[in-house]
């Protein structure tokens, strides 16, 4: 059962990612990215990481994707225009991609453990993660909160209406 669920959600995940690349219109890509996020949350649940799964759904599938869809609607971005692919990209890109894929496959086969990850016995209750977050990782947590604050201010400054010629009107 565990294996079947893993394979199903993994297939949905990779298919959504492929669809993201194939679709021409950004809104279709955004919706397939939502599918990827949702099936990844299911994979986290299968791994027993219930808190990370909840955060994935709320933050990624909820907040971040709403931001993406909002910007796509705002910019009214239509279908992507195609350009002729460059020869250099074909000559170097395809062998490069093959070499990279083989390298990743080799690393995975040679260096990964084959320890079985059994289902059940969820190791990631929110209580334990919260304790780790506010005890062992307190400083990174606070630094991250400052980072998010700076990101909010940066986004507001970047996306705000441009100042008129005589300086900002406050």
């Amino acid at each position, binding site marked *: 059962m565990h294996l079947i669920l893993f394979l199903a959600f993994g297939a949905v995940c990779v298919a959504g990612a492929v669809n993201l690349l194939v679709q021409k219109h*950004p809104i279709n890509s955004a919706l397939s990215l939502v599918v990827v996020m949702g099936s990844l949350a299911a994979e*986290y649940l299968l791994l027993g990481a219930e808190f990370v799964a909840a955060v994935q759904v709320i933050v990624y599938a909820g907040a971040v994707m709403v931001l993406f869809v909002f910007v796509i609607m705002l910019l009214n971005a239509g279908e*992507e225009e195609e350009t002729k692919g460059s020869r250099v990209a074909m000559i170097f890109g395809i062998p490069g991609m093959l070499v990279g894929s083989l390298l*990743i496959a080799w690393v995975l086969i040679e260096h990964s453990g084959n320890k079985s990850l059994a289902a059940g016995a969820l190791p990631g209750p929110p209580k334990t993660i919260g304790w*780790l977050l506010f005890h062992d990782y307190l400083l990174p947590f606070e630094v991250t909160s400052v980072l998010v604050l700076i990101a909010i201010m940066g*986004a507001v400054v970047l996306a705000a209406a441009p100042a008129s010629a005589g300086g900002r009107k406050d």
Partner: protein
Amino acid sequence: MAPITTLHYLVVAAALFILGVIGVLTRRNVVIILMSIELILNAVNLNLVAFSRMWGLHGQVFAIFVITDAAAEAAVGLGILIAFFRNKETVNMDEVDLLKW
């Protein structure tokens, strides 16, 4: 039935990572490039959570940090995109040359 190993999750994560890299390298639309970056970050998260199954909960805490940073990155990236669109009326990556000398 064969048990699921760490390798299974690593293969899914590697597939997501490669698809994200292909998206970053081949698409023209900046929005889709940002979404491919999210795909890469998600692949990293899947790896972290899969390893946390073996090595304790620290991987899950790191995954939460990565999710937070991805949200911040998306906000700033889309803000830059809006500011850029206001100047050039385009979202094509190859027309982003405001800093070119």
